[in-house]
């Protein structure tokens, strides 16, 4: 090794840069250039304070959990429940309205007439618990299931209605 090289090697940098300074330097410089470009190209946009405008509800991130086992390809459970509820409501409404609004009584009679009596008796006997005995009534009253059938009327009003609207023979029959 020559003397001049030895001399060069013995020279040391006096001022050391802070750790990581040069790693950041290039990106900071680039950022500065881009900011200046934005200022020149879009002064209005540049003058607007840059901030995240959309805030998550309070506590959202603390409670956020990934539902790893749920497949959510078709949207959220919330949305599915919403559509399912709407579909169920439409079905119930349609089911209740259809016999009176859409089907004529004649058509219903024909349809029922087509069903053999044996089948009707069997269906009614097996599927519909039409017979309600005294115990069942007590049960229903106890559970308040008959509240929808209560009549909101005073005794005087009932008396007037019976006298005005019913034949005396019918009243006598009822008594």
């Amino acid at each position, binding site marked *: 090794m020559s003397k001049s090289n030895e001399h060069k090697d013995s020279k040391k940098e006096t001022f050391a840069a802070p750790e990581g300074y040069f790693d950041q330097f290039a990106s900071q410089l680039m950022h500065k250039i881009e900011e200046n470009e934005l200022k020149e190209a879009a002064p209005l946009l540049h003058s607007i304070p840059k901030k995240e405008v*959309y805030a*998550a509800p309070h506590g959202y991130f603390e409670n956020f959990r990934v539902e790893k086992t749920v497949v959510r390809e078709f949207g959220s459970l919330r949305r599915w429940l919403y559509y399912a509820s709407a579909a169920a409501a439409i079905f119930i409404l349609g089911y209740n309205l259809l016999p009176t609004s859409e089907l004529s009584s004649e058509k219903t009679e024909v349809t029922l007439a087509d069903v053999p009596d044996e089948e009707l008796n069997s269906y009614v006997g097996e599927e519909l618990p039409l017979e309600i005995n005294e115990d069942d009534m007590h049960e229903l009253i106890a559970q308040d299931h008959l509240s929808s059938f209560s009549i909101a009327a005073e005794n005087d009003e009932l008396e007037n209605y019976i006298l005005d609207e019913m034949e005396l023979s019918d009243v006598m029959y009822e008594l």
Partner: protein
Amino acid sequence: MIEKSDKELLELFHKSGEANQAFDLIVRKYQRKMYQVIRRLLVDHDDTHDVMQNTFIKAWKGLSNFREDAQLYTWLYRIATNESLTFLSKSKKNLQQSIDDYFEVSDHADSSVPDFNGEEIQHRLQRAIETLPEKQRVVFNMKYYDELKYEEMSEILDTSVGALKASYHIAVKKIEEYLRQTLNQAS
């Protein structure tokens, strides 16, 4: 608590029996950033939550095949962006309306001169961004809000750096023009 580096998190994930814990830490580390990436595109919080779920579920499924030479952040960013764009393609939501709802616009808002430090100018900026085509909107958000390098954006969007620079430049010009017009109308 000191936040673990991506490398440490991935090492933990690959350890036997530690995958769930590692993934939970990854979610904690990146959930806020991903929330903003998605929310800026979808505006509505509930939609954002749905897409957040999808994003992290896909991450959970794909993490075992994740290339460790790539950055976890850009990988998640890519999934979040793709999921958001897929959601938008299926959704029929009016984003302008969602933006207005968020800022709760009064009848007088459009006729007043906006305060540049206030919410109204932020509202107008969001409206301006919403007028951009979807891909341009993604590019604008990446550069303007997240200050990503073009190289990172290129990795996320599979688009050349040159095309991204051009796209961002056009987006900026459009937003500036929109802001100028709305301010002229207001004054």
